[in-house]
């Protein structure tokens, strides 16, 4: 398949790509990225021009109906965002959608950079100065996305919403052993925050370190399949912060258990947990959302991620929602730094 696809790029699709300003210089080389073991995932191929050290294109290939839907969504999203100045060099430029052997192929201009996830696994960007810079880049991007897609407001989740979500958890996982007074505290915060509103805007949907490319030019964001609009803005920022905490090399080259990594990022006091807290406070400050309300939103986020509906048709085993449920349980057993006076 790779050989035929490269031939298509070289011959049949070349004119269209050339009109979009993409120069094709054969022989082309294809580097298939992503875990080869993930059979149900989409296929991504980086395309290199002859003697060029950076890939020119990325081919994203959907080989079933569900993936087609996601890929079409991504292509439509990128086409919509590509015209906006804020995203010029920060998103992959969509170049064409083609049919190939009953598969859908999206051709996009490749974004330069190394993923933040790879940097963390290489134990790079782990010092406070770098972490602060990376958090700022991520938050600035989310603010740009919010500005570009905002279209109204949403009511703050009230006690009925929180009760309903906790009931859904009970239904799926069986009766949950909540700490004494936890439910009352949560519902109390929800009542306090009744008058607040949230802005309605788009979410990226998979805003984690693996999809953020760091380069000297700044931040690039890839994998827009989970884009949804309208949505609540807090999903992306919480997804980024929680997954960042799980990816951070807390123990250097030794593995850190998931729950412990989460605890270190959100419940125990250290420079990084303080930085996560400060970043969240700053991010929500412009909407005048106080720390206790952020705590409530984070709780809601963890509950939603714990439900099977969070990731449709998750091909991984065990499914990711059970991992998130573990994080939710860790979160409610400890004292969040967001509740510090």
């Amino acid at each position: 398949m790779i050989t035929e696809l490269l031939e298509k790029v070289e011959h049949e699709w070349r004119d269209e790509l050339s009109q979009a300003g993409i120069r094709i210089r054969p022989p082309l080389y294809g580097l298939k990225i992503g875990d080869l073991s993930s059979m149900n995932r989409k296929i991504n191929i980086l395309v290199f021009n002859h003697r060029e050290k950076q890939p020119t294109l990325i081919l994203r290939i959907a080989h079933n109906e569900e993936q087609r839907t996601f890929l079409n969504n991504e292509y439509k999203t990128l086409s919509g965002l590509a015209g906006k100045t804020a995203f010029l060099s920060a998103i992959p430029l969509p170049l064409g959608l083609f049919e190939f052997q009953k598969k859908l192929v999206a051709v996009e201009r490749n974004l330069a950079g190394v993923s933040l996830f790879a940097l963390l696994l290489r134990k790079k960007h782990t010092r406070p100065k770098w972490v602060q810079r990376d958090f700022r880049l991520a938050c600035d991007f989310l603010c740009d996305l919010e500005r570009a897609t905002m279209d109204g407001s949403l009511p703050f989740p009230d006690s009925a919403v929180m009760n309903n979500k906790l009931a859904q958890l009970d239904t799926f996982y069986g009766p949950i052993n909540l700490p004494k007074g936890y439910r009352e505290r949560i519902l109390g915060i929800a009542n306090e925050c009744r008058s607040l509103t949230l802005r309605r805007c788009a979410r990226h949907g998979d805003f984690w370190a693996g999809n953020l490319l760091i380069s000297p030019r700044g931040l690039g964001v890839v994998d827009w399949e989970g884009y949804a609009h309208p949505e609540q803005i807090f999903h992306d920022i919480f997804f980024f912060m929680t997954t960042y905490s799980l990816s951070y090399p807390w123990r250097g080259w030794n593995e850190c258990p998931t729950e412990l990594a989460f605890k270190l990022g959100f419940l125990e006091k250290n420079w990084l947990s303080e930085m996560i807290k400060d970043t969240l406070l700053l991010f929500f400050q412009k909407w005048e959302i106080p720390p206790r309300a952020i705590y409530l939103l984070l709780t809601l986020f963890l509950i939603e991620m714990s439900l099977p509906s969070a990731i449709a048709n998750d091909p991984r085993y065990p499914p990711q929602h059970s991992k998130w449920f573990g994080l939710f349980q860790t979160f409610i057993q400890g004292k969040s730094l967001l509740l510090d006076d």
Partner: protein
Amino acid sequence: MNAIESGYSQAELRFFLPLAPGQRVGVLGDSKPLIETLTADGLTVTIISPPADHPLITDDPGNPNIDLDHLIIPEYSSDCYDPCLSRILQRLKPGGWLLLGIHNSEALFHIFSKKKPVGRSRISLGKSSDLLYRNGFHIVRCYGAYDELEHPEIMVPVDTGEAAYFFFKNIFVPATRFAAWTRPVATLLASIGLQRLLFRGLVIIARRASGGNGDH
């Protein structure tokens, strides 16, 4: 990585050949996920037994059928290259495609590794190319399998150094401190065209000449 996943990663080797439904593909060995996936894709799969280590005791001493459109050898681990491998290759039709995985005898990894794997014979890309050429094949592409041929996580083109340079600079995630130290060296070696030394396993994509049966 567990066994199921490793099987799946071999199944994805099929993306490296121009397969089409209805064609006959031979698979050396018993990679179940690969065979199942090929069958699901509408191909007719012929399982080929690994060769005995000596040509005199091969179980098929006669002339082989020339019946395959494609041949996938995920990992060739026998010491018997010529004539055992040659005999298997003869089953491919003229114009047919071959995927051949070899344990790279020139990989720098062997200098640092204390392990002497049993039953994995190594061969250089040069010797493999000679053997393929003698059997009427030309090499179309060559990939470095990272990090092992048995369960490749990523396949890096190594015909020139650029993709390998990009891989070590942008994608590679070291699992150990030692691997992290070697990354800049690997990047440097790739930039000066020595990328083939950086992979323990190589995957060769070759095509049998269209004219005749390929015998020279």
